[in-house]
């Protein structure tokens, strides 16, 4: 294992480069900017609020679209705020859902204060304990590359905590109007049914 921490933008870009038809939900806030930096896509639903809700948005979407892959990409602070949701996802056990936490052990939007993951809280162990089909902590790009096809296709629910560095990344802001993001996403997923 190299001593150089992973770059969050490179990690998210590598994962999304293999997205295919995967539907992506991002959490408030850095992972929303990460996904935008990797390239805007109508199959992205960007959360700009509702902290703690990303995994559950993913569950509802996965339940509605059992034939599609759903990938939630969120941060450690966002996941910690909705930690109990991992229990709900584990029990619901949607086979088409994966959650990737980009874990810099910091609250990036509020001044880089440390989160509980900087002090030993093991998110992958929580997911495993909740009954996820597979859960791991990733620290190298080799591990990210090995997990990427799993995140996009292996029967889930899957959970990956990806440890990244704390270097600041430039702000890349996607669509901000929630109604517009919602309408675009539904049109992409549902086509003519979006107007129902």
């Amino acid at each position: 294992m190299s001593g150089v921490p992973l770059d969050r933008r490179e990690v998210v870009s590598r994962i999304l480069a293999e997205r295919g038809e995967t539907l992506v939900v991002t959490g408030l806030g850095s992972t929303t900017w990460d996904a935008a930096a990797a390239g805007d896509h109508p199959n992205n639903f960007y959360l700009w609020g509702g902290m703690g809700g990303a995994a559950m948005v993913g569950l509802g979407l996965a339940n509605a679209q059992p034939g599609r892959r759903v990938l939630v990409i969120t941060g450690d602070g966002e996941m910690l705020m909705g930690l109990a949701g991992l229990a709900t996802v584990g029990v619901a056990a949607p086979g088409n859902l994966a959650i990737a936490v980009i874990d810099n052990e910091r609250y990036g939007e509020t001044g880089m204060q440390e989160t509980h993951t900087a002090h030993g809280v093991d998110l992958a162990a929580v997911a495993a304990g909740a009954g996820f089909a597979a859960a791991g902590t990733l620290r190298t790009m080799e591990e990210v590359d090995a997990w990427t096809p799993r995140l996009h296709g292996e029967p889930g629910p899957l959970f990956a905590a990806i440890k990244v560095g704390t270097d600041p990344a430039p702000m890349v802001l996607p669509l901000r109007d929630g109604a517009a993001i919602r309408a675009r996403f539904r049109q992409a997923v549902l086509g003519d049914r979006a107007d129902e």
Partner: protein
Amino acid sequence: MNRAADWPDAVFGVLADTGVRQVYYVPDNGHRRLIERCHADNAMLATRLTGEEEGVAALTGAWLGGDKGVLLMQSSGVGKCINMMGIVQECRVPLLMLVTMRGQWGEFNPWQVPMGRATAPALEAAGVLVHEVDDAARVAETVHAAARLAFDAYRPVAVLIGQRAIGFKDWTK
């Protein structure tokens, strides 16, 4: 028409006719019969939550994927949901919540009173349209109207089912 005491069955019929597919709930005595009916229906997917706020986010995902849904809870759970209302408001996601009330008509537990009192004002402050119903015979029609408002007008709507409709909780057994 069903007997008034059969309102959970009548509400189930309304949800089925509405095309509700995803049902999220925190276990609750007032909703016990309705939850059982939802679990037993192959056209519905009933999911137990650890906390009510999870349901607001999950129903956002459900709507994004083309499913209608409902969130069943007790009034004490409403307070937990408030921040998540930002998602459904900003994204204009339909949200149907059926809330059984505590802390009002005939309540025996004083600790239930504060949130019971705050339930409707808190929801309204968060932009949720509130329909209150105290008459068991009118619960189903109220849910029907709320479902129309939620899914046809793309709004968050809560039906508050009063303790007068549910009946006293017998705390002696």
